[in-house]
């Protein structure tokens, strides 16, 4: 399991390579990247992600462990960025690997749904009209409850 919270960008190819090298038992790798989106009424210039440093890695590790208990996973990588990010920049990377695709697909979605509602990160959007905190969406909580 590889859990990281960092300001710098990540390299998905390198992370997948690190998981699959010399592991012929892995039959499926699923990856998800979340990006800073600009579809609001006010153009989003950038975003600042703040977190609860002492808790963040612990929360992400706990979520990844829950996924490992539910599915037969060979590897899990979660990398979440913090600090100031521009529109279009990657925020989060989740990679799950398994013998078969079903477990990898399901676990990747599970981890993202849990991360969205259980990991202590908060986004502040910077727009031409000022800064504001992003509101949590009920749809994220509903997505989480299906598991």
């Amino acid at each position: 399991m590889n859990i990281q919270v960092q300001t710098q960008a990540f390299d998905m190819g390198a992370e997948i390579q690190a998981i699959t090298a010399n592991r012929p038992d892995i039959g499926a790798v699923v990856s998800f990247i979340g990006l800073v989106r600009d579809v609001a009424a006010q153009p989003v210039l950038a975003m600042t992600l703040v977190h609860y440093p002492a808790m963040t890695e612990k929360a992400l590790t706990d979520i990844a462990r829950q996924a490992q208990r539910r599915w037969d996973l060979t590897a899990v990588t979660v990398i979440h960025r913090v600090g100031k990010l521009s529109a279009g920049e990657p925020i989060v990377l989740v990679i799950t690997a398994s013998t078969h695709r079903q477990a990898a697909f399901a676990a990747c979605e599970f981890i993202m749904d849990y991360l969205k509602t259980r990991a202590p990160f908060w986004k502040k959007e910077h727009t031409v009209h000022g800064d504001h905190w992003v509101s949590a969406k009920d749809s994220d909580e509903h997505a989480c409850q299906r598991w």
Partner: protein
Amino acid sequence: MITLLYFAQVSEQLNINQEQLDLPPDTATLADLRHCLAQRDEQWQTVFNDPRLMMAVNQTMAKAETAINDGDEIAFFPPVTGG
């Protein structure tokens, strides 16, 4: 002594990031502590009576009925928006 941490909107609304205080008497659970902090003034009342307020005890998500003890690190924050 307990350590209280405040994050994001909650920190801005209360104008505080963290503080330490003696565990108030008759404070056994997070619900008790919330009730106690809500007495500080109107702004604190607004924040602590919001049912969406999230809490963690010693870096683990917690609920109103979670027990608290001397030495705990207790965090209050709005619903999370990462990912």
